[in-house]
């Protein structure tokens, strides 16, 4: 297990470095020079060269990369070429908002999917079980931002009980904070819940056919008791893998949902960065999102190993 952990950690670090190189190289392809963009078309060559020197973009790309990456390791994302503001604090401010959004969405998805998926599996021959399967199939077809628009229509336009967008920091007003997040959470959670329901259902169905469930019943457990005691933990092994993939999907879904609900998260920061051609900012946010996906994969793999003694 220790050996596995060390190996997996090494893979995580290596992939993060390679991902950083990829992101950096990609952004370096950009036609156009940050200094020229910052100064506009009428700038003198001397001024451009001077600014280039101040940005450090006149150095060889390898040196620039090491400088950038070295900063990242210490939490320094550099200073924006466009706004001259340090990027690190902006990202860390927004990261918290996006994390709350994603984790809340995941919680909604789990609360929906685990009972519904299990029920649909246990009652897979009944109309209600089939109805849950069909509903989850429809739910998968609805993108999170569309769910968001629908929810706004129902709860903000028609019923007028929740705000259609905006974000109030929890420190300012916890009640409003919660009210503002309910619809975004639901938008992300309903859709991911539908996907997850299908995986939970098929995992539980697979487990229900296992011999050890029959053994449990031969010991004197009823069908439900056997499934609770022996089935659900076994079914959770494949579901955990999917959960990781879903967290990554949710992170990206959050970028779009932030746009729908005007929430100042990482997605909002990223899109503003692109609009303002703030390349270093875009580079930093993309790196954070990619690193988050890699980290989630790492956590999933390790959890998977902890859950299943055969892999230890």
């Amino acid at each position, binding site marked *: 297990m220790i050996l596995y952990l060390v190996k997996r950690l090494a*893979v995580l670090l290596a*992939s993060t470095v*390679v*991902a950083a190189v*990829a*992101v950096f190289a*990609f*952004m370096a*392809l*950009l*036609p156009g020079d940050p200094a020229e963009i910052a100064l506009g078309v009428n700038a003198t060559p001397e001024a451009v060269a001077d600014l280039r020197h101040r940005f450090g973009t006149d150095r060889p790309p390898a040196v620039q990369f090491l400088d950038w990456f070295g900063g990242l390791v210490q939490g320094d994302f550099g200073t924006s070429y466009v706004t001259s503001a340090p990027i690190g604090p902006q990202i860390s401010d927004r990261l918290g908002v996006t994390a709350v959004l994603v984790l809340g969405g995941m919680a909604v998805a789990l609360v929906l999917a685990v009972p519904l998926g299990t029920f649909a599996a246990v009652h897979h021959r009944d109309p209600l079980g089939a109805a849950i399967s069909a509903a989850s*199939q*429809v739910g*998968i*077809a*609805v*993108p999170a*931002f*569309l769910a968001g*628009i*629908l929810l*706004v*229509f129902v709860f903000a*336009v028609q019923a007028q009980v929740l705000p*259609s967008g905006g974000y109030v920091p929890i420190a300012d007003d916890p009640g409003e904070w919660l009210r503002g997040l309910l619809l975004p959470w639901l938008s992300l959670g309903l859709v991911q819940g539908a996907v997850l329901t299908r995986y939970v259902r098929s995992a539980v169905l697979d487990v229900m056919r296992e011999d050890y469930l029959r053994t449990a019943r031969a010991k004197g457990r009823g069908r439900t008791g056997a499934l609770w005691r022996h089935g659900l933990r076994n079914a959770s092994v494949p579901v955990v*893998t*999917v959960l990781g*993939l879903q967290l*990554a*999907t949710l992170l*990206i879904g959050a*970028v*779009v949902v932030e*746009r*729908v609900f005007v929430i100042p998260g990482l997605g909002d920061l*990223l*899109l503003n960065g*692109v609009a303002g*051609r703030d*390349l270093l900012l*875009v580079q930093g946010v*993309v790196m954070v*999102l*990619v690193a988050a*996906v*890699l980290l989630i*994969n790492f956590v999933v793999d390790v959890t998977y190993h902890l859950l299943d003694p055969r892999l230890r």
Partner: protein
Amino acid sequence: MRGRPNLALLTGGTLVGLVVLAAAVSFFWTPHDPTLVDAARKLREPGGGYLLGADKFGRDTFSQLMVGARTTLYVGVVAVGIAAVVGTPLGVVAGMTPRGWLSELIMRVNDLVFAFPALLLAVMLGAVYGPGTLTAMIAIGVATVPAFARVARAATLQVMVTDYILAARAAGRRRPAIAVRHVLPNIGSVLIVQASVSFAIAILAEAALSFLGFGTRPPIPSWGRMLQESQELLFSTPRLALWPGLAIALAVLGFNLLGDGLRDHLDPKLRRIRADG
């Protein structure tokens, strides 16, 4: 199962067929010019030749939906095409030499690409080359490669232990010959199913990108952008969001059901092989 009508295949096929039909007809005929801006028809109610009404620029919603289907299919076909053409050979190679360094390399790179979702790729590409249909297609295609490679690898691993492959290898046939003659035909049905499922995901991605302004540029109609344009009018004219939303959901549902139906139809044994992305 034999003899029972395949409901998923039937429903999925019908929905996909409708999208294809709308796209095909739109080349020759739409009720109105979908891009024609006309202040006189601004937010026109449905009826009188405007089946679903007109938007804030006076463009006919129904015509826009028809041409939007074309955009959706165009992006889906190219993106899934890129993913299949790149991902399949990688997966087959990795599956045929599961213990080799090449396989290891392919799967590691695969995992890395997997960390770059379509949306991030599209935003990065958009930042460099400017947003548009092409960058959206490439981004979605590249992001879908890992799913194809994984599925192709899993299916190849299964095929490689079957008797006929073992026989072909024992007979001294070379690996490329085995790959083309035996492996590809046998993983074909898995790939077709994956293509259908990936198509659904591509539609979702394209809609999200257009919604954010990183997809198809105006004035070419796209369902995602129709939604984005309708959001501010949700309080006054919700129908403008309803129709493109419905179109996206039904198209995605259609391709998902088609994938499920094909899976059952082509080979029930293959139900377990499925990518999660």
